[in-house]
């Protein structure tokens, strides 16, 4: 296969995943959330149980006027949604779907790349929060910055633990060395990574920066039309990314009870959707945290647990 063809197929595959997975997760969020609240959720768009609701939403968003507030910093304001979306797209590039190089772009330090690029997302929040010229947006932006800076630390520490256990930073390499008993060994890191990941994508119960009921969606307050649609899209891609990273790092990626070689991609997808379901489930079940509770959870619970996990990992690694 010539290089350019392979490259096109790989990038095309990632783009397809980028366009479908978030929509599936978004639709699942609509329906799961509705049923958990004793409702039906969307029922009309697309005739069968409202399967086309998000597409209909998209069509609606396209028709809306694109408003930029007069006092806003125009270029920054208009660029921010793009900056919010691109990092997650880049992360999808390095997440392995199955064995034998079934990945957008295999990177030797894929884990590091993923964490670094996810961290760039906070710049977008600050950009949109500040450039909107709105005090609620600014509050949201500042809250987001404080939250993301804090939760980056346990996220990286938990990921470091599993990288230490596997002895590699390559995501495929981590899945290859993964063994079922790691579920027990790395359980604290799994918890820390998952919670910090949910906080990193600002999902409820960690959605203080958005806080629809108090800040009117924080940094997104002033956005309309297509630009406004990009933020929820980025949020859904964020769910997919965090679920996929959790799957690959802690749940064994493509390893399953049977048929790893030809069904690996299916195992990965099943696990990604299961973790996404848990993220949605958390949103329905728990109320939003307060700012002090948020910081307390990060610095007094997650960081110490992650550090303890690092020590444990090192101890087991040396003992073996």
């Amino acid at each position, binding site marked *: 296969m010539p290089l350019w063809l392979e490259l096109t197929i790989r990038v095309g595959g990632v783009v397809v995943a980028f366009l479908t997975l978030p929509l599936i997760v978004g639709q699942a969020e609509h329906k799961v959330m509705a049923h958990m609240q004793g409702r039906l959720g969307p029922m009309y768009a697309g005739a069968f149980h409202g399967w086309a609701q998000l597409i209909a939403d998209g069509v609606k968003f396209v028709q809306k006027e694109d408003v930029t507030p007069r006092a806003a*910093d125009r270029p920054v304001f208009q660029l921010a949604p793009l900056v919010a979306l691109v990092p997650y797209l880049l992360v999808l590039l390095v997440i392995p779907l199955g064995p034998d190089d079934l990945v957008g772009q295999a990177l030797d*330090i894929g884990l590091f790349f993923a964490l*670094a690029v996810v961290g760039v997302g906070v710049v977008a929040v600050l950009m949109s929060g*500040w450039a909107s010229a709105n005090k609620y947006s600014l509050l949201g932006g*500042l809250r987001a910055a404080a939250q993301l800076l804090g939760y980056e630390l346990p996220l990286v520490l938990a990921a470091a633990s599993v990288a230490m256990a596997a002895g590699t930073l390559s995501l495929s390499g981590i899945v290859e060395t993964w063994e079922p008993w790691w579920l027990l060994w790395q359980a604290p890191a799994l918890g820390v990574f998952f919670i910090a990941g949910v906080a990193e994508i600002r999902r409820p119960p960690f959605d203080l920066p958005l806080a629809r009921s108090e800040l009117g969606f924080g940094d997104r307050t002033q956005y309309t039309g297509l630009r406004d649609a990009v933020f929820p899209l980025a949020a859904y891609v964020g769910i997919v990314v965090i679920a996929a990273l959790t799957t690959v790092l802690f749940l064994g990626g493509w390893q399953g009870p049977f048929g790893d070689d030809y069904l690996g991609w299916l195992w990965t997808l099943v696990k990604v959707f299961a973790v996404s379901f848990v993220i949605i489930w958390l949103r329905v079940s728990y109320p939003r945290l307060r700012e002090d509770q948020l910081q307390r959870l990060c610095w007094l619970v997650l960081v110490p647990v992650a550090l303890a996990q690092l020590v444990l990992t090192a101890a087991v690694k040396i003992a073996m």
Partner: protein
Amino acid sequence: MTAADVLLLGLGAVAVGSGLLVVTTKHLVRAGLYLVVCLGAVAGLYLVLTAELVAWVQVLIYVGAVVVLLLFAVMLTRAPIGASDDLDRPGWPALLVGGGAGLGLAALLIDAFRWTKVDLPEAGTAERLGTEIFRSWVLPFEVLSVLLLAALVGAIIVSRPDIGTAGKGADR
């Protein structure tokens, strides 16, 4: 000119251009955003120069944390939207020293290296760098960790005035 040269030139131009905007723009927050572009371009330069790990550390630490802190500080100190005219001191001494330093160094380096060609070495992966750090540079590494800890404690104490006064209050 090879492909690497073209990439280096392009990324270098982006880095210098956005760097220029960082020190000349009248918009406080935009200076921080241009800094993101500049640091990103420098990370790209690292990638071309086969320093993979350093490039992503640059993105993780600089773009993900340092610039965010800077932007955070800019916003906490009430940066206005739009241009502010009281950002600069009179320019010519700075221009003299800065231009002198930059152009002088550039001249020195051009004179030293001319148009020589160097083959790109193998990539600086995490494994090789780790080996190197823990074989040759363990002591600086440990010293750095102490420095980081000291900076952390210092930053907390400086930014929390209530820590110092709590003890005094107890004495009284």
